[in-house]
């Protein structure tokens, strides 16, 4: 892991077009500003991991299709 010290308003550049800038730091955390090309997705790690896990569970659950279909039909029929 590359470790660098940055002060407020200083940045690091990653590859072609990705910039991570320290906007503010304090006791509660560090506020970062990230600039990246449109095709690069930027996410908070814990949120990304949650979605990864949800997708894996959904792929496994696709085998329950018939039960799910019955359930959703019941729901869609409600006013």
């Amino acid at each position: 892991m590359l470790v660098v010290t940055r002060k407020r308003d200083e940045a690091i550049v990653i590859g072609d077009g990705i910039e991570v800038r320290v906007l503010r730091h304090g006791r509660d955390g560090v506020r970062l500003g990230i600039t990246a090309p449109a095709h690069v997705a930027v996410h908070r790690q814990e949120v990304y991991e949650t979605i990864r896990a949800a997708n894996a569970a959904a792929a496994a659950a696709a085998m329950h299709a018939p039960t799910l279909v019955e359930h959703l039909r019941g729901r869609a029929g409600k006013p």
Partner: protein
Amino acid sequence: MSMTVATVSETDPTDSKAEPLVVDFPSGIPGFETCHRFVLVSSPELAPMACLRALDPPEASFLTVDPRLLDPSYDLTLREFERARIGAGDEPLLWLAIVTVTEGEASANLRAPIVINPGRMTGCQFIRDEADYPVRYPLGRA
């Protein structure tokens, strides 16, 4: 390329044996980053859901549903850079929420919808960081 276009235009949409169109997911989806080509399969047996199936290994399948069916006020707006990722301007897009079952509880992921641009046949799973839509929107017991 012209061969592909000709094949598509000659396909009768009412022919159930027709090959479904392939949607390109340039980044895959979280956890399935190697899956770039998907087909969306609808059938009377699955309705109101549709099956989003990866053509690339591990060939994962996902049951999906229109999020507006679950929450009529579901926000269908993307930020400009998100629309750019699927090559979209102002045209209407296809929104899908992934359905899952864990421990007998069915739920839909309203936090990370799949959005497909039908004009470009390009899709992406977006994560709504600011929105308070749940990852597990309950559908009740399956």
